[in-house]
């Protein structure tokens, strides 16, 4: 493979793009769905193979990329480091699961739908791999555009407003980030061909050259963009509306993978570039995140719509991850790494169940559902496991991550941990409330027509369960994967 110059990064980024474009050409719905499924499985195969070659520099893209904008110093450099490998694996495994789980849904112009989904995958892969700031920004936006089209064409009744809000909000953040990128760019020392450069290593070296005041406002520019993407309180209001109105397959990608873009960007582009600013503002940000956790958990208790419920629960989890990142402790940041993967898998599982319920009963309102356990015991059991994984029951993958994140948070500040710990209780409250209202009790007339899920759907959910428990009992491979990256980032903070 080396001789051909093909590297994992190229395959992971550009193959979905090509596959997506092919999808636009295929007219038949079933054929395009099968092609999308096949393409995503091929991408998954590539990603799994890449897990076996962690040390190989060429295959993972560390050979210097070619210059595409020489005069301004931007080059096409992509590479897979440990964190990138973990997140590309998450992306690669999410898409086949999503396609398989939503295979029964019919869409108008399905070929366009699947094509856009694959384009989104390309953008996501690119974000996780890029080592050049301009390229990073390019892929960041590229992931957003198909999402806009997907939501606005195939979404719910209020899709136009929700998508508009989502797009403008996120885009504003991205523009702020662009300003930040260009500011930092102007401070980099250049190469032979250009005065400045967008290369990531140059960005890392900028920290020492910035005046402290400058570092502060640049930090906030970047952070606001990522805060909107993650999202954390109080920049979160686009999320419930968007998740509610978007087609469920898109929501799965948005909540499963796209929000991880925000967290990933903090680790790769924020923490190493502005270490002094991070240490200065960490208390504020952690306080915001912790408030957001409690706030979102409380609101989740009162949600009637299943999709909004899942959205608020997601905000609570992301809040914890963001807080743990800013503690800048090895144990906390490693916990975030594994939690990014776990949360992605778990939340996709939850969305799959919500989708199955909506398909069969036609409603997402918790108050109108009840007693599903009578009619669909298989679905109930799978949901209960996924819901418990969501609230970090031990032996599930989320527990390992949460335990480590809380340990890191405790090292940082005891009181934040105590308050954040309340979210453990609140999470149990809102999850069990939902489970009880929707699944237990008497089966009402709406539910009476339900049947249990098919074997194919059971298989998909079983895959998720296997991932939940394997990572929960033996998380070591994940830690080994990301150990180096985390150590590298954190060494910048040792004063």
């Amino acid at each position: 493979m080396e001789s051909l110059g093909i590297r994992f990064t190229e395959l992971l980024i550009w193959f979905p793009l090509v596959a997506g474009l092919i999808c636009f050409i295929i007219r038949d719905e079933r054929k395009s769905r099968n092609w999308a499924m096949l393409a995503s499985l091929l991408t998954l195969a590539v990603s799994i193979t890449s897990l076996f070659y962690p040390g190989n520099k060429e295959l993972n893209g560390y050979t210097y990329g070619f210059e595409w904008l020489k005069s301004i110093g931007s080059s096409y450099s992509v590479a897979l480091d440990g964190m990138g490998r973990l997140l590309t694996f998450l992306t690669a495994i999410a898409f086949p699961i999503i396609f398989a789980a939503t295979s029964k849904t019919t869409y108008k112009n399905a070929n366009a739908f699947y094509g856009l989904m694959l384009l989104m995958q390309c953008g996501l892969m690119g974000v996780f791999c890029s080592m050049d700031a301009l390229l990073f920004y390019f892929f960041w936006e590229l992931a957003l555009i198909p999402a806009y089209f997907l939501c606005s064409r195939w979404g719910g009744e209020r899709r136009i407003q929700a998508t508009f809000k989502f797009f403008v909000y996120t885009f504003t953040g991205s523009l702020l980030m662009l300003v930040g990128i260009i500011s930092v760019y102007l401070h980099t020392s250049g190469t032979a061909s250009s005065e400045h450069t967008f290369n990531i290593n140059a960005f890392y070296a900028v920290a020492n050259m910035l005046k402290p005041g400058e570092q502060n406002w640049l930090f906030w520019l970047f952070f606001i963009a990522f805060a909107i993407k993650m999202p954390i309180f109080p920049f979160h209001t686009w999320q419930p509306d968007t998740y509610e109105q978007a087609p469920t397959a898109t929501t799965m990608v948005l909540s499963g993978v796209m929000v991880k873009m925000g967290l990933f960007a903090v680790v790769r582009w924020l923490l190493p570039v502005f270490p002094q600013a991070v240490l200065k503002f960490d208390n504020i940000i952690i306080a915001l995140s912790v408030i957001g956790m409690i706030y979102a958990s409380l609101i989740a208790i009162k949600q009637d719509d299943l999709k909004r419920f899942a959205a608020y629960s997601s905000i609570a989890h992301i809040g914890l991850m963001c807080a743990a990142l800013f503690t800048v402790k090895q144990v906390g940041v490693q916990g975030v790494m594994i939690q990014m993967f776990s949360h992605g898998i778990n939340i996709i599982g939850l969305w799959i169940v919500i989708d199955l319920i909506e398909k069969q009963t036609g409603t997402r309102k918790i108050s109108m559902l009840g007693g599903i356990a009578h009619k669909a015991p298989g679905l109930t059991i799978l949901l209960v496991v996924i819901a418990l994984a969501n609230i970090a029951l031990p032996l599930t993958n989320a527990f390992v991550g949460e335990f480590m994140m809380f340990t890191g948070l405790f090292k940082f500040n005891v009181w934040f941990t105590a308050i954040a710990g309340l979210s453990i209780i609140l999470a149990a409250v809102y999850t069990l409330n939902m489970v009880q209202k929707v699944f237990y009790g008497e089966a009402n007339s709406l539910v009476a027509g339900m049947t249990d899920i098919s074997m194919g759907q059971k298989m998909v959910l079983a895959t998720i369960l296997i991932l939940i428990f394997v990572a929960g009992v033996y998380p070591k491979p994940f830690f080994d994967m990301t150990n180096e990256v985390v150590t590298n980032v954190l060494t910048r903070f040792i004063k």
Partner: protein
Amino acid sequence: MDVLKLVWLIPLLPLVGFLINGLARNYLSKAMAGLIGSGVIFISFLLSAWVFFSLKDGQAPIHYFDFINVASLKIGFDFQVDQLSSIFLLIITGVGFLIHVYSTSYMHDEEPKNFAKYFSFLNLFVFSMLLLVLGANYLIMFIGWEGVGLCSYLLIGFWFTNNNYNNAARKAFIMNRIGDLGFLLAIFWIANKLGSVDFHTVFANAPDPNKFSTFDITGITLLLFVGATGKSAQIPLYTWLPDAMAGPTPVSALIHAATMVTAGIYMIARSNILYTMAPVTQTVVAVVGLSTAILAATIALKQNDIKKVLAYSTVSQLGYMFLGLGVGAYTGAVFHVMTHAFFKALLFLGAGSVIHAMSGEQDIRNMGGLKKYMSVTHITFLLGCLAIAGMPPFSGFFSKDEILGAAFAKNPVFYIIGVAGAMMTAFYMFRLYAMTFLGEFRGTADQQHHLHESPKAMTIPLVILAILAVVGGWIGIPEIFVHGGHRLETYLAPIFAQSNALQERNEMAQSKEIMLMAISVVAALAALLYAWNKFSRYKKSTEEEKGLGKVLENKWYVDEIYDAIIVRPVNAIAKYLNNVFERKGIDGFVNGIGRAVNYSSRQVRLLQSGQVGTYVLMMVIGILVLFIVQLFL
């Protein structure tokens, strides 16, 4: 062959049973499901017995694989097999096996797939509990801890059609979680100080003032105790236990009488050195334990549901165990765990037998005179009542008196209140016994028609447990009666060696000890006889309770208080945040920006008036402005 190499089988077998019964529940017959479910527990019991007999001193933890190995934190998946864990292994697998066998008959009305589901949950529960007692560090213990919480949620809400049962299950889980938060904070604290949560490391470093200051130890032990109050139903987190009676009776027997609620005792007994080093926490533990014992006993005096009486009795007895831990009588507390497992499981299974015979009736005001119809159940139940009342030579006497003796040594007031509680225990237990088995039958004719002794699968476990309830105390005969008779203490000595070295041993005079025992026995006997007399002639009356009786019957209105000060405010806050803050506040702000942009663009659009003259005017003004600006800048 070294049985320690097979220790991992002990929890694994119930897990396998869970998987088989769970995944194949639609295909297994009831006989097969029951066989698999009980069989795996039986094999685990045999393995536990083997471990018990081949145990040597100073076992090192068995390391299976690295669980979390990151920078400062090293936690492995390790098991620790020593005297304390082997005792608990025997109790869990032994009593568990008897309850599984009992369940095969009690649950025979269920459909095959629910039957298999029931056994799979029971197996999962035993697996979690075994993990809890085998763990060599606090994290594995915590995994088992949450696991048993989960299983109790699943089993309490087993008949999920009834919303009340679901609410009870949810309440149990959430109250447990509140306690778990305390436990977790304690683990983080320990990890922060030491970088490890292994028992060996923690206990070796505990006396070192450089590693743990007094503030640290007190804080850690208090937080651990918060966890224990959640799991073992002490004040203030006990209200879930009586509600948990919604589950099938064998479940109540297993989880709430014999094993799960004793997890808290195990945890504190295991951490005994930490508690010995924190006298403040010890006092807190003793006071909370004693208060819970009394509070629960008072409530039990006026309950009319057979299971609720037993539930409050469990809470009360747990209070005694915590009292024992709080005064430093660690062996006594573990002893009481053991004897309590026997007689409480016996009582619950007996109650199940009665409910079964009464076609589901649970109100003791509608029972009576059952001894004619169910002799085995009657005799075993009586033996259980005698044991719990602390009558010699039954098991409860030895364990309870050991705790009371140690309590007296710490503080005579503890002893006096403890004896008062023992009197109440004897009273309400024999009220229960008399109203159920003695006197005239007060139920419907239909129920009377169905009264029969329970099948063998239910009565044989009752008999076995009764024998254990009678003789179980003889492994802990105090020094004054037989020299070297307290075999349990000798056995557990290595576990508590560190603590015992540190605390003073109050050796009481023999005569004093005998007098204390005599007082408590006589007091309890008096209460027993009074209750026997009063309630064997019980006549059903329709008058309602008044005054103090009403308060007791309504459990001191604690549930209502919790509802008012916690549940309602939280709901109100959530509602406020959802409707006002989120919709109008933040979302309003964001949407407001959108509206503002729209408004301003509408205003600006008015410039496009279409009047040519205005355009020209604008042009001229613009040129003038540019000109002037250019002149001055």
